[in-house]
């Protein structure tokens, strides 16, 4: 008759490690991404209340001279010491026809929003310099569009990341001026997120932003793309 400790030990042996399906692992990663987004949204709601109160104090305490504009407090700037997830806030503006956008960088402005593209720029950007992607690179902001004919350079290193639980590619454009994140969505479309290198975004920040994007049935390729 075996002792109870022997039987307990055989329970481990009886359930020897089974191979794990890649899809299961990807789903675990996707759940982690969503949890991060939810957490930063809760933080931003709290911090934006504090930020608004602090900005009101700063605004009230600065005395402009000669009609200069009152300085405003920039928040949510990329490349700051915020955690990757803290730079996004829930997007409550009008959704583009071609995409559903869950979160955008705090304080950024929408420049273009339609069935072919969704373009956003940081606060203070001179939008006269913004041009449409596909033909000339968008120098200042982030662009979301269908991949179309855009391809990452074959001789450039490409990192594999996970977006919506699926493998996605992240690499630099030929001139290194931007990074492209190309990922498949559940409808079979390939989405391209273009991020200028000058923004200094981390991989985590780019992936978190992309995780909040899905394609609608109205999406169509951008001109020149």
């Amino acid at each position: 008759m075996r002792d109870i400790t022997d039987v307990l030990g055989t329970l481990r042996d009886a359930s020897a490690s089974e191979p794990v399906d890649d899809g299961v692992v990807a789903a675990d990663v996707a759940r982690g991404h969503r949890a991060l987004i939810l957490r930063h949204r809760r933080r931003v709601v709290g911090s934006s209340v504090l930020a608004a109160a602090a900005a009101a104090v700063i605004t009230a305490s600065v005395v402009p001279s000669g009609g200069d504009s009152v300085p405003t407090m920039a928040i949510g700037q990329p490349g700051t010491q915020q955690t990757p997830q803290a730079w996004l806030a829930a997007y409550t503006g009008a959704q583009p026809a071609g995409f559903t956008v869950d979160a955008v960088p705090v304080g950024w402005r929408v420049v273009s929003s339609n069935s072919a593209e969704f373009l956003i720029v940081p606060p203070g950007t001179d939008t006269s310099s913004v041009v449409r992607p596909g033909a000339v690179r968008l120098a200042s902001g982030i662009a979301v569009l269908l991949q179309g004919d855009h391809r990452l350079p074959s001789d450039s290193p490409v990192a594999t990341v996970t977006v919506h639980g699926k493998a996605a590619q992240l690499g630099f454009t030929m001139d290194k001026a931007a990074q492209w994140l190309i990922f498949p969505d559940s409808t079979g479309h390939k989405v391209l997120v273009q991020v200028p290198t000058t923004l200094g975004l981390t991989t985590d920040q780019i992936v978190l932003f992309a995780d909040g994007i899905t394609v609608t049935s109205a999406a169509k390729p951008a001109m020149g793309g």
Partner: protein
Amino acid sequence: MRAAFDRDHEFTEFVTTRRAALVRVAAMLLANDRARAEDAVQTALTRLYVAWPRVRPDTVDAYARRCVVNAAIDDRRSLFRRRERLHAELPEIAVAENQYVDETTVVAVLARLAPRMRAAVVLRYIEGLSAVETAAVLGCSEGTVRSQSARGLDRLRAAFSEQSRNFV
């Protein structure tokens, strides 16, 4: 603190190699209910992913097990608080003189132990962790682990009839 950009790659590697073992731990804590065990592991891995940059590489295994144990205990509390009655003394289970103590019976009896006592027994005698390692997972002292696991074994042994016990 680990670099954030490594998180997906490192987490994927960890889950690929350790997920099955975590499901096993959860199943033992949840009376071999695979569906609830899967839920507990998903909850635990989500917490682990969020905390990943703050978890030292040499403690990620213990951290993951702790998340699974906590998720499994939370599961039992939320679903079975009214229906489950823990027994201070486990009812005796008659076993024929020549019959082995089978795994199914052990798992069923294991499920009747108090949650943290059950966790101590599972981690020490099924997962094969040392008392120190088990203490790290449960967030308690080594002495507490030793007394909880010893008492758990005593109760498991006492649950089987006198003539089938094997005195060690």
